[in-house]
């Protein structure tokens, strides 16, 4: 059975932060089309802060996720502070005690994060939010495992589903949050949160996959 080591895998979060910072302008541009344009700026601020704290810490994945979650939750504000804050905190909590993370633990982690988001945000799939990336990604992961695929394959399925989910937001009318005021006018553009969520999931899963033993 494939697993990856929790210890020292905090680098994954560093890489994740780099990706978000790289995409700062892009994410704000997307948010600007139907939102207020702060998504990339705030995300980059939060992830950058966390990356700084983690520097040279040799943290485990759980520790790194915990740091990231806490920074987002306590220092960033906006929608993303609480939503991604709770997500990463839940991620961290679920793998805290796991040394070698297997598919089951990974799935448990994903579900906990998802539930965290849903408990404070109360959005549903189809509302044009990050859930449109997240939910199909988790489903694809679980389905792949249930179908007997390997952890690595399931991670690939997860990434692909997250990105398909992100792309699906283009054809959705926003039902929640800022963009929902726009009604039909929100059609035709990606959701900013779904886009950042796809980036996060790709990086996290890619990092895990590269470490599988």
């Amino acid at each position, binding site marked *: 059975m494939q697993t990856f080591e929790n210890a020292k895998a905090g680098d994954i979060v560093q890489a994740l932060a780099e990706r978000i910072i790289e995409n700062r302008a892009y994410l704000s541009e997307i948010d600007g089309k139907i939102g207020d344009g702060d998504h990339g700026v705030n995300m980059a601020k939060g992830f950058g802060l966390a990356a700084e704290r983690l520097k040279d810490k040799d943290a485990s994945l759980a520790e790194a996720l915990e740091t990231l979650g806490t920074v987002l939750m306590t220092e960033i*504000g906006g929608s993303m502070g609480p939503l991604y804050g709770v997500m990463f905190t839940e991620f961290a909590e679920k793998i805290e005690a796991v040394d070698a993370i297997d598919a089951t633990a990974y799935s448990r982690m994903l579900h906990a994060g998802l539930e965290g988001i849903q408990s404070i945000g109360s959005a549903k799939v189809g509302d044009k939010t990050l859930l449109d990336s997240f939910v199909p990604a988790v489903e694809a992961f679980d389905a792949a495992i249930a179908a007997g695929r390997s952890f690595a394959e399931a991670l690939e399925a997860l990434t692909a589903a997250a990105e398909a989910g992100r792309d699906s937001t283009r054809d959705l009318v926003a039902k929640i949050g800022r963009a929902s005021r726009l009604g039909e*006018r929100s059609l035709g553009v990606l959701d900013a949160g779904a886009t950042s969520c796809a980036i996060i999931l790709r990086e996290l899963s890619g990092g895990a996959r590269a470490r599988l033993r």
Partner: protein
Amino acid sequence: VKKFLNNPNEVVEEMLDGVVKAHEKYLKPINGSHRALAARSGPRPEKVGLVIGGGTGHEPCFLGYVGKGLADAVAVGNIFSSPPPDPIVQCAEAASGGAGVLFVYGNYAGDVMNFEMAAEIAEEKGIRVQTVLTTDDIASSPIEDREGRRGVAGNFFIFKIAGAACDRGLSLEACAAVTRKANLRTYTMGVALEPGAMPQTRRHNFEIGPEDMEVGMGIHGEPGVTRERIRSADEITDSVMDRVFNEMKAAPGDRVAVLVNSFGATPLMELYILFRRVQQRLAAKDILIEANWIGHYCTSLDMVGASITILHLDQELSELLHHPCETAFLKIN
């Protein structure tokens, strides 16, 4: 878009450095942080504390309304982003005089999540918290979904009423109730001619065509509810006032307060032209303007546009509106 800036990433910090120096008569940092500011004279034992807050980019909202008779503390977020729970909790503690704390802020997903978390933490610390969400933007949702609307420039009136109620020593429940009433009787609608630009990008998020305007504009630079051809000032005002009259059940002889608010770049000259028509429309219905404010009260960076807010007064609201206050941007005596 050109701006007076140093490091665009430090714009909020630098602004707050300026604010804290400029308004030290009214404001003091809580525990040294510029993200949680308390009124120098405001919080006092047995008074309900009023905590307001939200993102930056709306100046003089929210920090301009902190002081004696108005808000006791303000939590300050990044541009167009709610503050995180921690400064809100600090505000609650600073504002608390033992009689509970009232949170009043605009109804946005981010603000709701962060203020709710803060309220939980404050409750755990033994501070009773009640919350009133402002939802005065009549363009943002149909009347059936009044609770889903956003809070915009009408904040100005709702904060004022809340602050006066607190200052008069009402109970937490009574303060919340009258603030809720003020919110229900406050009607705002905004129109933007050009979007503003974030300091970090110095570009417009989106463009409004040369002949177009965004109707039902919020205060975060996001597009409005509909895009229409630009019309005359009177026609624009008429369409706003028609929407207001549709919801506000005012009888001849009723009294209102009016706020004509610049979104940032629209100058006073044009606001007076809008006010002129607002006054005409109200007078035609025999509704009296008891007080008015015209200027920059709740902005959206350098957006070109304006909003009109009508507060439908009753005896209680009128008294609270005129209750003295002393803040950096609103003084009543």
